[in-house]
């Protein structure tokens, strides 16, 4: 799936947009380096990664032109440290005030990332702010606004709207199989640029950059455990369930038909052609339906009257 970078409003400029499969920050950093090499000062409003991590990998002549507005350390402004930048400060005047602290002249504004802002402010407000930044920053000349967008996080309507506003959109995604060779994973970047003359340019380029080696694992870093360790798995396998007959003979709940009747709460399965798996399931409470036994339906926890050795749940 493709991620996209979106460039917005009057100041032209490409924006990288990425997805979980392929990150775009590296591409954003190449644009930052290019702006710095052109002699522009670069104001970075960073919200997702610490300043040191963003500055890592830049040459000294790029770093000296980089002015970092820290929105990562204290986004809600709880400690109130000077120099921090909160979400509520993202207005045209707020941003222009920060830009005025830097040197005058051509300036590139970088947002890392736009997704972070869009999750906290409505899209119309963000777009209006972006459109007003060049006008509000009167002491310097904003040449472009670069913003990183994580396409996965937003509905397609929002992404399309941003695409239509942007002058250039750069999407990054994994390259198809067979492309490229070597250690680093190849990526494809496609750029759609709208020129002032009304022409629309489409370019696709291949690039290689080293992505961080993390996989997307939604079960990682949780406060509860979704997986079983080996000992836990063995203990679970060895556990015998209630109403699981251990002697051969009449075992109503080991037959598929009875199994389907025995789980009315879960709903009857459409087909149950295979026999039940031998591994016991996690302990759910079944409502047993009498077949051979006449009389009232026994309650689940009531001890059975037959002589077969049904293990009571209380014996677990």
């Amino acid at each position, binding site marked *: 799936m493709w991620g996209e970078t979106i460039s917005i409003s009057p100041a032209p400029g490409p924006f990288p947009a990425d997805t979980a499969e392929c990150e775009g920050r590296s591409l954003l950093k190449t644009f930052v380096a290019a702006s710095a090499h052109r002699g522009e000062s670069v104001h970075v409003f960073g919200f997702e990664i610490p300043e040191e991590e963003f500055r890592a990998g830049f040459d000294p002549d790029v770093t000296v032109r980089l002015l970092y507005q820290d929105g990562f350390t204290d986004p809600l402004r709880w400690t109130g440290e000077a120099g921090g930048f909160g979400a509520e400060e993202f207005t045209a005047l707020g941003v222009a005030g920060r830009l005025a602290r830097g040197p005058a002249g051509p300036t590139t504004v970088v947002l890392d990332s736009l997704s972070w802002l869009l999750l906290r402010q409505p899209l119309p407000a963000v777009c209006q702010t972006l459109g007003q930044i060049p006008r509000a920053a009167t002491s310097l000349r904003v040449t472009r606004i670069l913003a990183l967008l994580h396409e996965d996080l937003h509905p397609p*309507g929002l992404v399309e709207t941003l695409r239509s506003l942007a002058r250039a959109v750069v999407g990054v995604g994994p390259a198809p199989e067979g492309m490229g060779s070597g250690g680093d994973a190849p990526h494809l970047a496609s750029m759609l640029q709208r020129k002032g003359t*009304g022409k629309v340019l489409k370019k696709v380029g291949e690039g290689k950059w080293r992505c961080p080696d993390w996989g997307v694992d939604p079960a990682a870093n949780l406060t509860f455990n979704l997986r079983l360790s080996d000992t836990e798995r063995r203990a679970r396998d060895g556990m015998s369930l209630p109403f699981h007959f251990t002697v051969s003979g009449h075992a109503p709940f080991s037959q598929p038909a009875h199994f389907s009747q025995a789980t009315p709460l879960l709903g009857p399965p459409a087909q149950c052609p295979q026999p039940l798996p031998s591994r016991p399931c996690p302990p759910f409470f079944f409502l047993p339906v009498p077949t051979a036994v006449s009389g009232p339906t026994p309650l689940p926890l009531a001890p059975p009257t037959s002589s077969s050795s049904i293990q009571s749940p209380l014996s677990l």
Partner: protein
Amino acid sequence: LLGPTYGTGSILENTTLEVLDFNLLPSSLNLEDKYGIYSNLLFKYFLAEGIVCGHNLFVASAKEDPADILKELPAPLSDDALKNQVDEKETAIKSKQESQESMKIAWRYQNLPRIEVNIPAASARFGHYYDVSKVVSPELLQSTKWHRFFLPEEMSLHPEIKTCNMTCGYTRLLQSIQRIIYQEGFDGSYPQKKQKNILRIGIQSLGSVLWGDDICCAHNPEDIYSLTKFLYVLRGLLRMSLSACIITMPAHLIQNKAIMERVTNLSDTVVGLESFIGSERETNPLYKDYQGLIHVHKIPQLNSLICDVSGTKDLAFRLKRKLFTIEVRETVFFHYLEPERWSKSYHLVL
């Protein structure tokens, strides 16, 4: 219809040229193509026609400064330049004709010209022609009286309002239009004072997020009726004054299709533009000379009860060198071995 009638929508027909007259209609809605390129062009044509006719202009935008929009209007073509343009086209057609294969069945028609290009005399002409490659001269602009509404500018006048939601933006625009109509006498006030003139209103990209509206990005917008309420009030203002309005709207972004139905209902003319950029039609040989299709969703029915009886529904546009032309697709049954050809130019008069 209430209010003054200021011109009938007439369709002139002659053997070769059919002129679609959209002139002097209360409101005309232009649905934007995907990248907004051609809808912007039609928007500029409308305003340029106003300048050439000596009308007053009102330009509203949330994206571009109206002064910048006016600077980029296409320059009108003089009669001589127009004649040269026509001659160029005829020679191009003739050379193309010679290179075509001879017709197998309809050989009697071999020597007839394929496309007849006839520009009627200036007195019979309705509308003007423009050169897209040139911009209007500053002198012509200066002689035009125009008014502006630029939303970020309006918001900066009231800094206590940090962000302008759609209600705020639309309300301000309506108030501005109403004020201009009243002050300049387009609604019939000051009848003895001024000579009657027409106000041409152009609103760019209405409904986009820059106006503060979220119908383009949310399936369940915060206020689904704000746009339609705006159009309803605008229609009332237009009906009671000597004004015409063109609105461009990014319909392809509006998530809720019911909104587009209502908007179509509230407009007099609705034209959709579909550009081929980025679609598979870009490489389709059938469309190789053209940049997009025009879909006429609604035409005005002034003082009429009959429905749309226009025969031509299949229109494409092309922007070649200087002229923006709309052509109708016509299947010529004699040439069933050849691909369908395009003929019969239409000139859109705005």
